[in-house]
């Protein structure tokens, strides 16, 4: 007897890793870090907390990239297409914020940490947007 045909799983119903939640947690760490440092400008904020927040944000993003690389099947082309254009848009926004920090004479370790946080912000948003789009795409 032939097996009963199984209904195709719609993209909507597929179980996905918590990329959005991890990305949001990373964004919280970035926002906390930027607020913590910016609230001290032009003076120097104590660096320990800022470095810890940066490390947490970066680690969460690495976890996200690993999780994303393991999703099978996944609309990778659509993900990359959306991520590329979102990255361009957020590079402009991050560039403007960086310009304001440099213009305000932020220098040294403060500037390095703020730049790294902005870089993480710039990389995180495209992942969040592109993942949400790609998870609803039909895949082979």
């Amino acid at each position, binding site marked *: 007897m032939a097996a009963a045909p199984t209904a195709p799983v719609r993209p*909507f119903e597929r179980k996905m890793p918590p990329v959005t939640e991890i990305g949001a947690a990373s964004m*919280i760490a970035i926002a906390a870090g930027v*607020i913590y440092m910016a609230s001290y*400008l*032009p003076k120097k904020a104590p660096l320990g907390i800022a470095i810890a927040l940066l490390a947490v944000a970066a680690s969460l993003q690495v976890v996200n990239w690993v999780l994303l690389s393991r999703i099978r099947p996944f609309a990778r082309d659509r993900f990359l297409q959306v991520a590329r254009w979102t990255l361009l848009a957020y590079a402009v926004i991050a560039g*403007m*914020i960086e310009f304001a920090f440099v213009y305000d004479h932020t220098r040294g370790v403060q500037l390095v940490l703020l730049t790294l946080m902005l870089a993480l912000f710039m990389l995180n948003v495209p992942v*969040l947007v592109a993942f*949400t789009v790609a998870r609803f795409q039909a895949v082979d």
Partner: protein
Amino acid sequence: MAVAAEARGAPDGVAERPQVQVVPLRGLPIVALVLIGVIVAIARDERWGLVFCHVVGGGLWTGIDLFVGFVVGPIVGRMSIPARVEFSTKFMPKMVLIIPTIVTMTLAAGFQLARQDGFLDTSHPNHAWVVASMCVVGVMAVIALAYLEPASIAVLFELRKPQPDGEVIATLMRRFMYTAGITGAMQVATLVIMTRLVS
């Protein structure tokens, strides 16, 4: 740009749907103009330019968030799926351009004004209010960037499909409306903080 390219027309036999542009290309020069204006205002450190960018951007941002969260959201929530689809097709692409632009305009100019006024100085009596406003913006940014904006863009991609999934659109629109409501409520906190700062 494939993302911004217009969707193909509906195939034969399928009801004609409005064409969907994820990013309305005609709006990009206006966005560029606004961002250049903000950069010039910061570079010249001109008080009027910074106040203009912050007040106009902030007013629009707050107004739009409150209006979408508490007026448009509940109305759309009660619409039929086809009506939501038609509304989203016209509404979402505009939001994709408008919101990031006015948010950047408001925050960049606002930070410079806080610096000019000495509010960033930890000994300033208004420092705590500025930090509170940064925290409110931080929470709104996390909600908007992690949930609201991805949902609005995903809806547009769904609408470009020959046969959009109504359930996907409804789920994403619900997410959009809930998060818009939360950010709208948080804008009330922004209004309290900002009016406190200038009084």
